[in-house]
């Protein structure tokens, strides 16, 4: 950042969370390093540390990829094995990058990074075009309902910045893109190493008239990525001060998962079905006229009804689905295979229950989206449509409609490890 820093501008920036996927050597680390470096987000001592490390390793150039490899094992093996989070900002937006490895054995890491992302960058090596892994990364973005996906056709410098190569990749892409459920797909030809079209417009590709990658990241419209229509408020915590001043205060604290709540709104509490009216929406900074995602707020009701953590406030005429029998698309994240008939703890919004795995409907080949009805053995990094039964009803929406009320995690109670990520169908 330079000296023209304007703190008011900084306050009013939006936050964009994106993930990067690419296979080993597609240039993912170089791209992130380039974004950080060209947007002046790398500080001098970080840059010097990387420069020294590059020299020690006998590398002929400053290896920007070293900026993003966190753990010792990764440095030793020269690969990225976990999700690493990176931060940078430009005068327009603040960015959080979930940097994830691209190999199939790290599907769970990609899914983790994708779960909170507004946008995914998928890297394609211009010399190789669309590969199995490109399809896999695209399907994961689609499965996790990342609203925006940007395909970066990288290493254009190695194909003479050829328009023809780029066009061929785009037309190949059309063959499988019909299977994707992504709202917004973009393409940018880049060279991460040389910097073309990353932050600065390329002089080598005058045939490309679209935006640079950074321009896209700064301007893609994300304000409507949240559901502002269907009101969902999972009660997270009940605030009871027990003080003289706030003697009868009983506030329901939580993070708005969908819709816009206002004082005076008639609401219904689930599972009880009791209705009341919103008396006030509180925050430490004073009461609000309206509350919407992803705000944290405290709702006070006119009537005293019994509500606790795990309950949900909704509008009477717009209730979520309520059921104990649920179908999910499950990404399995553990070495120990999914047990059909097995019991797991399940977390959904602020609720924790247990569930039984009733059946595996089919397994999905993540490279082709082919459905396999026979193979019911679901191991690490595999994806399957599964039916479950919970000990009590869940109040949910389809993941497609609302990522907050449509997602669950499964926990193995023998070791407390998170073993599965589920998207409600």
């Amino acid at each position: 950042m330079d000296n023209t820093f304007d703190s008011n501008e900084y306050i009013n920036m939006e936050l964009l969370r994106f993930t990067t996927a690419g296979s080993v050597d597609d240039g993912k680390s170089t791209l992130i390093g380039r974004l950080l470096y060209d947007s002046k987000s790398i500080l001098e001592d970080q840059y010097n540390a990387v420069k020294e490390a590059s020299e020690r390793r006998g590398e002929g150039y400053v290896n920007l990829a070293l900026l993003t490899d966190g753990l010792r094992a990764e440095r030793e093996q020269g690969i990225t094995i976990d999700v690493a989070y990176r931060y940078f900002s430009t005068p327009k937006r603040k960015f959080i990058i979930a940097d994830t490895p691209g190999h199939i054995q790290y599907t769970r890491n990609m899914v983790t990074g994708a779960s909170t992302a507004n946008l995914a960058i998928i890297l394609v090596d211009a010399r190789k075009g669309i590969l199995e892994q490109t399809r896999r990364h695209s399907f994961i973005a689609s499965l996790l309902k990342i609203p925006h996906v940007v395909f970066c056709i990288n290493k254009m410098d190695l194909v003479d910045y050829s328009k023809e190569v780029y066009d061929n990749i785009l037309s190949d892409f059309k063959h499988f893109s019909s299977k994707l459920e992504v709202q917004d797909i973009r393409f940018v030809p880049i060279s991460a190493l040389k910097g073309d079209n990353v932050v600065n417009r390329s002089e080598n590709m005058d045939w490309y008239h679209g935006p640079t990658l950074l321009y896209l990241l700064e301007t893609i419209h994300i304000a409507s990525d949240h559901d502002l229509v269907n009101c969902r408020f999972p009660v997270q915590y009940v605030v009871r001060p027990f003080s003289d001043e706030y003697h009868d205060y009983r506030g329901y604290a939580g993070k708005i998962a969908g819709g816009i709540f206002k004082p005076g709104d008639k609401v219904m509490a689930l599972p009880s079905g009791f209705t009341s009216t919103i008396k006030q929406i509180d925050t430490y900074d004073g009461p609000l006229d309206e509350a919407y995602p992803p705000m944290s707020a405290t709702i006070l009701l006119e009537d005293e009804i019994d509500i606790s953590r795990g309950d949900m406030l909704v509008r009477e005429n717009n209730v979520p689905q309520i059921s104990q029998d649920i179908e999910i698309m499950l990404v399995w994240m553990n070495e120990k295979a999914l047990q059909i008939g097995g019991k797991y703890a399940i977390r959904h919004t602020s609720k924790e229950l247990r569930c039984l795995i009733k059946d595996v409907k089919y397994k999905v080949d993540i490279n082709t989206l082919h459905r396999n009805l026979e193979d019911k053995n679901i191991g690490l990094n595999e994806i399957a449509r599964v039916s479950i039964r919970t000990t009590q009803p869940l109040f949910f929406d389809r993941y497609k409609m609302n990522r907050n009320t449509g997602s669950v995690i499964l926990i193995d109670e023998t070791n407390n490890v998170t073993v599965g990520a589920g998207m409600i169908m």
Partner: protein
Amino acid sequence: MKNSLNHLQELESESIHVMREIASQFERPCLLFSGGKDSIVMAHLAKKAFWPAKIPFPFVHIDTGHNFEETISFRDSLVEELGVKLVVGSVQEAIDSGKSVEEKGVGASRNILQTLTLLDTIEQNKFDALLGGARRDEEKARAKERFFSHRDDFGQWDPKNQRPELWNLYNGKKFPGEHFRVFPISNWTELDVWMYIRSENIRLPSLYFSHKRDVFMRDGMWLAHAPFMQLKDDENLEHKVVRCRTIGDITCTGVVLSEANCLDDIVAEIAATRETERGNRADDKRSETAMEDRKKEGYF
């Protein structure tokens, strides 16, 4: 923009959500309070998360005995203002009782001894979740830390075996004797913290603002002088106008030459600055993976 939050509001909401999760999922949580700006921001967020009720967990300070006086008085007044309980784990007591052995010589630091006292304090008080103000942008090993970071019954972190953390569904399940470190401001950067302090008008110790102090240069960093610091032959005390970028144990907290004496100036300085704040902390300079190694052993 209508019905959307700016990035600081979104970060604040995320942190408040995490704090409320802690209060709901754990029986004996506590907030690790170092006296630095990140823990002051954490205290502020906790106040907001539970208002108008009081913060439902105590603050814990691991006191190396090498603190700036002002850190301690600021801590005490904040704790009183918030009406929370303070638990102090004393490194000095551990040394006096022979439990811990002090590093000797030039560059000696009690930083490592903190880990032992911290783990003792956790055990004595049976804390099951410790809220920390670490941020992922501070250091490479932190970049992979979860919001809910599981520790085994020796307090150790296993970076290769972390639980996947998806959406905002946090898994705080554990067995007896294990605990969690939780980092509600994981996604904040140093600049975010300063901007937030400015926009919320959060009170800070005056150490963060420009003042005159005896300092000396070591390994390219300015360190504050204190009676228990040993100077090498080629090191000389100088009287300079400085301020702290982070506040912790005096022996390893660097200061920067700065005239910034109000939040606006500090924010402008940080925004224009070309060095990360941890660049000023001697404890990270010991090796390229110093932070990762200490974290595995149970450091903050």
